[in-house]
């Protein structure tokens, strides 16, 4: 009887590689020379300042599963000074299986290393350079203990695990890129992080332009937006532009946030809907996008 190979390719089952063992966003970092002003914005959005860094002017904000770091350390905040003093999203930390291995893997593929500035007894969190002077950190100790216990001191009397307003969680990041740069940034995110491009007919929220990618773990999305060719002066530097927050009930969240003083973009073409809403930009650069989150994981 002739040997028959098993029919393993019949249904083209996708492999969904996840070389780094990505498992979501551990924290997002803003750099700013105006930490208190940004703090007020974050508190209106439901974040609570829970801890301060031991050696630098850095504050940890938290709500629910979201950690957000505001970095006003002079050397780091200088980056935001280059954009007229406006706060910038200076880093995104990914949860990975093994931080050192993930870092080495990215370096061997051509990522730029970022020198650590950890002080004695502080955690060295490996990082690579991202778009526009931002950084991607790799964190592997998020199950057994909190990295913040090492570098941060809790603010006395503050609830360390404040619940999330309206059950919000990180949904994704919007990255502004240069004209005709989509293919290049897609290649970057595919090669280093195994992100997957989402077909154009799948969109979330109310700002669907650009190219949407998913993390291989499916727990957050990444949106690449080129300049609008109709606008002649829409050619700012490449950057991580805003954070998307996923939640089950957008209208309820909009009402609650409005009561806390948050204003939303409300025009004929762009206004709060059941699918999503966009907060009005404050401090020159900071806005959040609310996105109705249908299910977990987001895509894959």
């Amino acid at each position, binding site marked *: 009887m002739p040997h028959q190979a098993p029919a393993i390719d019949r249904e083209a089952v996708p492999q969904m590689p996840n070389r780094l063992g990505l498992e979501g966003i551990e924290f997002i970092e803003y750099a700013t020379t105006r930490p208190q002003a940004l703090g007020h914005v974050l508190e209106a959005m439901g974040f609570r300042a829970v801890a301060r860094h031991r050696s630098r002017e850095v504050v940890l904000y938290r709500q629910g599963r979201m950690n957000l770091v505001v970095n006003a350390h002079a050397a780091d905040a200088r980056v935001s000074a280059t954009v007229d003093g406006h706060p910038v999203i200076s880093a995104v930390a990914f949860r990975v299986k093994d931080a050192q291995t993930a870092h080495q893997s990215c370096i*061997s*593929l*051509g*990522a*730029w290393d970022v020198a650590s500035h950890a002080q004695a007894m502080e955690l060295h969190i490996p990082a690579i*350079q*991202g*778009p526009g002077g931002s950084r991607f950190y790799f964190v592997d100790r998020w199950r057994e203990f909190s990295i913040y216990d090492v570098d941060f001191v809790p603010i006395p009397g503050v609830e360390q695990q404040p619940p999330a307003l309206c059950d919000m969680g990180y949904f994704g990041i919007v990255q502004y890129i*240069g004209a005709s*740069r989509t*293919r*290049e*940034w*897609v*290649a*970057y995110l595919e*090669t*280093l992080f195994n992100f997957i491009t989402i077909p154009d007919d799948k969109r979330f929220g109310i700002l669907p332009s650009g190219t949407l990618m998913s993390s291989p773990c499916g727990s957050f999305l990444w949106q690449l937006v080129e300049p609008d060719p109709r606008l002649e002066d829409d050619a700012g530097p*490449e950057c991580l532009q805003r954070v998307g927050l996923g939640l089950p009930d957008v209208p309820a969240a909009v009402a609650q946030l409005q009561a806390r003083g948050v204003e939303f973009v409300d025009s004929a073409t762009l206004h709060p809907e059941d699918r999503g809403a966009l907060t009005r930009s404050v401090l020159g650069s900071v806005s959040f996008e609310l996105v109705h989150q249908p299910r977990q994981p987001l895509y894959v």
Partner: protein
Amino acid sequence: MHKLDRFGMDTITMAGTLDAKLAAMRNAGFDQVMLMARDLVGHPGGVAGAVQAVQASGLRPTGFQVLRDFEGLSGHLHEYKIDIAKSMLHMCQATGSKVLLVCSSTSRHATQDLDELARDLRKLAMLALPLGIRVAYEGLSWGRTVNEYTTSWDVVCRADFPNLGIGLDSFHIFAAKTSLSALGDLDPDRIFLVQLSDFMWNETPSFEERINTARTFRVFPGEGVHSEQLADMVIQLEQMGYRGDYSFEVFNDDYQQLPLDTVAQRARKSALWLIEDVLHRPVPLPAWTRQAAA
């Protein structure tokens, strides 16, 4: 559209300071310049001074050259070349150049495995990507493994990375006697730079002859014995849909001892030959007609 639009000179063609070279190009009507790393580091004001001079000249950088003997090395040699590449990329970015030129390796220490060469170039392209720089890979006609554009294109295809493309140099194509017919296999969007020059003899069979000619006796397009071929090459590239830049990569010992304006005028004559006699490009309308239309 500027009259000499898409054509420019390389700084390597002329003697003198960077500032004098930029001024001569500007006076001859060019609006772009292919920069050499040596121009920057040798500037009295250092790299920052050179960057300032380029910006003040109003000339757009065509690209930045040149990273040599990069691909195919291993161990410490690879790490060393990665460091060199990073420094080159930083300089390239500082000048506002969007293209880094990389010449195929001549090193006996480099592997001849095309997939490994492709892997290293992919890594270089990844380093260049966040900086907004594209990498143009050019086959030197005396490259050890890659010495024809057909092979450099093969390596670029194997690497398959969007900001890695090919750099073409007419000298190397004519010196190696590679047929122009294979140009049709190239994707015009992945040709990141075309460098043009001619030379005075028909045969350069050995690597040594190619190196000597390439470094001392190239001439501008239309001045040498391969004018017909060069015209064919440019016409074919235009017909394929290439819309990138052409730069005159002319190493010539005579031009190194002539007044800069004399050399720049020879370059202008060459550009006009290509624009008017070869490509028959329509003459741009005077500025006042555009203002009236607006």
